[in-house]
């Protein structure tokens, strides 16, 4: 993993169109500003992973599993 040191208000650029800026640092919490093209989804990783797991579980369901809701 590439590790870079940055101060508040400094940025890194990924490719030529994604910019991540350190907006604020307080204790163990860092606030990031992310500018990316709208077609690139940006997620908090743990939320993305949870959504992914849930989608994959939902795709296992059959019509009989949800019939009772009709």
């Amino acid at each position, binding site marked *: 993993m590439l590790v870079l040191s940055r101060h508040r208000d400094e940025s890194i650029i990924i490719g030529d169109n994604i910019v991540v800026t350190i907006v604020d640092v307080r204790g163990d919490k860092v606030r990031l500003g992310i500018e990316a093209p*709208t077609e690139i989804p940006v997620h908090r990783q743990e939320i993305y992973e949870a959504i992914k797991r849930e989608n994959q579980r939902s795709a296992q369901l059959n019509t009989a599993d949800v019939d009772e809701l009709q």
Partner: protein
Amino acid sequence: MEIGTTRFGTIQISVADRVCFPAGLPGFEDCRDWVLLVERPDAKVGWLQSADWSEIALPVGSPRKFVPDYDIRIEPHDLRPLGLESPKDLQIVAILGQLSGDLTMNLKAPVAINMRRRLGRQVVHVDDWSIHQVVRQWTAQLRKIA
């Protein structure tokens, strides 16, 4: 055109029925073309069926039919790729799931569709809604039948 589905057999759809998810869905990033299948206009449950993979389909429902106080609050940057011209074009569905036998709904990450441009995206609600909101308890139903 015809698409094959594991759950519903071969179905006829027109190109206009398809909904494009340019980023796919989390877990199904390569599935860009989907069809929203609803048996009847008043049905509470529909299916988001992949147009390319017959076995991939997700049961969905209108969240407000199950959780009346659910409000849609999504960050503008999350909705921007849909290119909405009017809020009337926006349809929100939530994906149904199953947890310990209960039927649940993912209210944290609903699916937003621009029905006019046929563009969709799974978005993230800004508030703390559950990924597994219980909409029907399994045991309660069984006891009633017994």
